[in-house]
């Protein structure tokens, strides 16, 4: 149990998925203009990563390993994730409309989010069991949510600040992320 909690904290804060592993940067930089959209995106990422690490783990353990096709993992995982996102979207639309309203628009954006594929591949590379893999996925998703919401908050505050014109837009966002990354470095060595 302690091990699982440690993995969760390590994945969400100490080795933050965006700020120290650079996965999922596209949506991190692109969808962080408003806190509201950032929360929606973060929620969708938590949802999809957790489900996809479960499905990818099951597929790897019960289909790829027994048949000896482990080397097809990259192809299988990316297709399964793409299909899974579509199915989750349809399921939510039909049965949980309130959740669909909050997360639905962000789901297609996540298909090519490298954090999702990254977690599935890491679970295999680290030899995690299925439960550990799901916890690792959940932690990664929470880490993404924490990072993107903080970034969106800072960006909303600096929107009307007066900084040199060449720094406007993405350059300022990147410098903000650099400072956040330094701050998260403080957690290194906690575990």
């Amino acid at each position: 149990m302690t091990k699982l909690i440690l993995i969760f904290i390590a994945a969400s804060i100490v080795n933050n998925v965006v700020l120290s592993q650079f996965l999922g940067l596209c949506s991190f930089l692109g969808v962080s203009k408003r806190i509201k959209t950032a929360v929606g995106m973060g929620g969708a990422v938590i949802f999809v990563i957790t489900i996809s690490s479960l499905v990818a783990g099951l597929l790897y353990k019960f289909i790829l390993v027994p048949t000896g096709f482990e080397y097809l993992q990259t192809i299988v995982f990316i297709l399964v994730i793409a299909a899974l996102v579509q199915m989750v979207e349809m399921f939510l639309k039909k049965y949980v409309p309130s959740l669909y309203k909050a997360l639905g628009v962000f789901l297609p954006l996540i298909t090519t989010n490298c954090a999702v594929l990254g977690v599935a591949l890491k679970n295999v590379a680290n030899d995690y069991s299925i439960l550990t893999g799901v916890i690792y996925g959940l932690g990664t998703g929470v880490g993404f949510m924490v990072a993107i919401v903080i970034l969106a908050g800072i960006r909303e505050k600096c929107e009307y600040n007066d900084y040199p014109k060449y720094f406007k837009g993405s350059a300022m966002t990147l410098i903000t992320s650099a400072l956040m990354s330094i701050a998260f470095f403080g957690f290194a060595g906690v575990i």
Partner: protein
Amino acid sequence: MSKIAERLYNGIVKENPIFVLLLGICPTLAVTTSATNGLGMGLSSMVVLALSNALVSALRHLIPSRVRMPAFIVIVASFVTIVQFLIQGYLPGLYDQLGIYIPLIVVNCIILGRAESYASKNPIILSFFDGIGMGLGFTLSLVFIGAVREILGSGAVFGVQILPLADAASGKAGYTPISIFVLAPGAFLILALLVVIMNVVREKQAAKGKPLASGNGCLTGECSSCSLSSTCKGKSEVSEEDDPLVKKAVENLKAKQTVNEEVKA
């Protein structure tokens, strides 16, 4: 021949994927801790890019357009798997360094972007050289960024010590490495500076009447270039113009301007 040279020039200079188009940011930040890593990542992406471009182009009349995205992904993922095995077999040191970022070449937006925007519409040879050109542009930029980070962070390039290091114990004067540049925050800082420099260059070129191709990666928050653009429903939520308050303010401003102009006239 001239067309092939034009594709190479286009990929390396005119539409350089990192410096001009701002594409493929994830691998750029993650693997440029040293020039050697940048070179390895760049060359592996180039091989995948050239081969997948050629195959997509060869199959362009056979793939129905409705299922083209999954088909492209399968093609790219197969080549990535092959390249991964080659690196694992022949360059185990590099394999350990790049780790998970090799299979993640699959989701590199440069590769799917070129398959969608160039290879699916052009003949095989040209698509192949388009991949080579784009891949070379990507490699050169990665090596350049990697070299800058390596020299600032450890005083070396390609692992060769260029700046003699200071030694406090013996009192020897020399370079004190700024190790943050080889760590995660340094990657963001270097990329931020790069974007600023490119903004200056962009403005100068535009003033000369020779504007650069506009950046269209995820970094700019611009969705139109994304290969999933046609199926994505998240765009409206993401773009700022959709915010009703902003929309209203912009409309008010425009109305005022037209009124002013009419008064002047």
